[in-house]
């Protein structure tokens, strides 16, 4: 009925939700424009954390090439092996990939998106379980909450016996961070300009000043 483990296992989502609501509350409730921008930042940060936490593969390390990759002549067979190994690990439920899937795109596309991976991972497995020592590569992979991209990414490097986290959300969120910084910059610049034009950055006072301007115009019209 009330499953405490179910809730605690998903602590990363609770962090995200808490931050998101805090940020949104600040944006709505604070009258100071700078505080609004800060609230907006917290709101955006929650999304960054969400993206980063879903990209985490249990026991996975940062997506940086480690170990002997000299020459690069191993790469092709590795990919092929990886996809085959991945199949057996995932016990591919449907749409098993062609055996000769030796190119990256093919391997990624063929990885089953649904079934045991994907959303099932979200519900049945803790999305961010305690980190397992990355030494045991294959078991670590099995506990991964991988969606298709996780799985594919991890199985690509399976042959190298290293588990990587999914780098794609990291890249996406780097872009989103840049957008967030730009938004903050524009917002603060606007706050500076508002302060120059009105002499205040408090929303109530701004509204009052605008109302005076409006009524001033009305008075002028009546006189004319």
């Amino acid at each position, binding site marked *: 009925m009330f499953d405490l483990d179910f809730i605690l296992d998903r602590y990363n989502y609770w962090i995200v939700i808490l931050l998101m609501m805090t940020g*949104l509350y600040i*944006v709505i409730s604070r009258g100071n*424009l700078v505080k*609004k921008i800060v609230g*907006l930042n917290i*709101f*955006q940060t929650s*999304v960054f954390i*969400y*993206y980063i936490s*879903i990209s985490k593969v249990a026991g996975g390390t940062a997506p940086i090439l480690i170990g002997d990759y000299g020459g690069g002549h191993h790469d092709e067979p590795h990919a092929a092996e990886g996809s085959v190994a991945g199949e057996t690990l995932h016990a591919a439920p449907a749409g098993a990939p062609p055996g000769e899937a030796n190119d*990256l*795109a093919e391997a*990624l*596309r063929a*990885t089953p*998106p*649904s079934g045991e*991976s*994907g*959303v099932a991972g*979200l519900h049945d497995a803790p999305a961010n379980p305690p980190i397992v020592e990355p030494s045991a590569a294959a078991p670590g992979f099995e506990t991964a909450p991988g*969606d*298709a*991209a*996780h*799985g*594919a990414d991890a199985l690509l490097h399976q042959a190298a016996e290293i588990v990587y986290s999914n780098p*794609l*959300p990291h890249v*996406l969120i780097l*872009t*989103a961070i840049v*957008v967030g910084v*730009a*938004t903050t910059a*524009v*917002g603060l610049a*606007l*706050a500076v*300009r*508002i302060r120059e*034009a*009105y002499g205040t950055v408090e929303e109530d006072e*701004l509204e009052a000043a*605008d109302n005076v*301007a409006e009524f001033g*115009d009305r008075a002028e*019209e009546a006189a*004319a």
Partner: protein
Amino acid sequence: MNALLAQLPVLPVVIPFVAAPLALLTPKGRPTWAFATFVSWLTFIASAALLAHVSSNGAVSYALGDWAPPLGIEYRIDLANGIVLALVSGIAALVFPFAYESVRAEVDEKQTPFFYCALLICMTGLLGVTITGDAFNVFVFLEISSLSTYALVAMGARRDRRALTAAFNYLVMGTIGATLFVIGIGLLYHAVGTLNMADIHVKLAGMDDNRVVQAGFAFIMVGVALKLAMFPMHLWLPNAYAYAPSAVSAFIAATATKVAVYVLVRFFYTVFGYDFDFLANALTYVLLPLGVIGMFAASLVAVFQEDVKRMLAYSSVGQIGYILLGLSLGTEAGVSAALVHVVNHGLMKGALFMAAACVVLRLADSRCRAFHGLARRMPVTTWAFILSGLSLIGVPGTVGFVSKWILLQATFEAGHAWAAFLVVASSLIAVVYIGRIVELMVLREPPSEGPLAKPIREAPLSMLVPMWLLVAANLYFGLRTDFTAGLAVRAAEALMLASGAR
């Protein structure tokens, strides 16, 4: 030449994007403007060529950086976004020449390079949102266009300092919308592990009851609804449109919300697809009522506005209601009605805001009192306003009539005769608010004293020509319906077919 043609799909984004920083380097004033105008025309040529190509040869896919989709970012152009591309770049090609005099009067000369740079970036963003086939890419381009729009709106501060607060509010609302959108994309990615729209659609099959997908859908819908100013999330729009520099108002009123509508259509039908049960509920219980309420509420508020630009802005919110109504029917006819009105509303609102910009140029005022007796002082502008106003109302012979006719047909076909009645009833409100201004312009005497009494000339030719080209488009496409309506119907057919409606 062939090499260039192969790269055609990416040109509408690359040309203005590369040109925008270059515009900063040009000497301020006329050279910047000439350069930006030239760029906008080039972009329009590329978009028109693309639309012609798609119209005769079917959808085009372009793999950015030669990374094959679904891994790489795909630009995918079919009829639906081909039409929107042509609309955005076409409006831009008219607004840029139009902007020169208006910007000279309303923006500091020092700022003109920044102004044209921001306008080019805004255009890039809107075109990018339209052209891309990658869900996350939509977010990036949406923010590119939004960020530049915030800056552009704030540049209206020289005329009225309220532009600053309007821009700030727009920034807060727009960022919340974009962030909700990106949460939705994240949830979708969590569920299916891909970002390519077509690929998401394939992998979503059979995941109708998945709560993550449903939450993602809701986040995306609310996020985009904020961007397209769906009633009751429109509060940022009236001030932003009213206090922005007039040329900017003309551009964003005709394009920005339309592109957001397109994003909604794209996500509804290409990403989630017709057989996604949740979509039907969202259409019937959210979009339909909000669209209908928006039609009335925003139009009624428009009637009581003192400022003509603000009135037109509220009218935009009302017109979005028609588009959403068409969309919410969930039928092929409904979607094509929405697409037709996206284009037609861009044409009429662009022309109306341009007429308002002419008045602001000569009288430095956009309130009703500036419009008194305008027919005698600026007859050419007045008639442009009246004709595009008639188009907004939906008088036969104009594009507004075509939109409403197709929308009425769609509502009858879907069995919502009451909605058809409401469409006609809310059009009568448009008669009131447009008629009110027309009465001021034609029947009233020009003010005899006060700051507005000065003798004024007609607007310069560089503004009249683009404005009348838009008015002419309003009339031409009102009579030759096969082009807009025909294309939109084909686009809707293709969308619905791909989404599995039949």
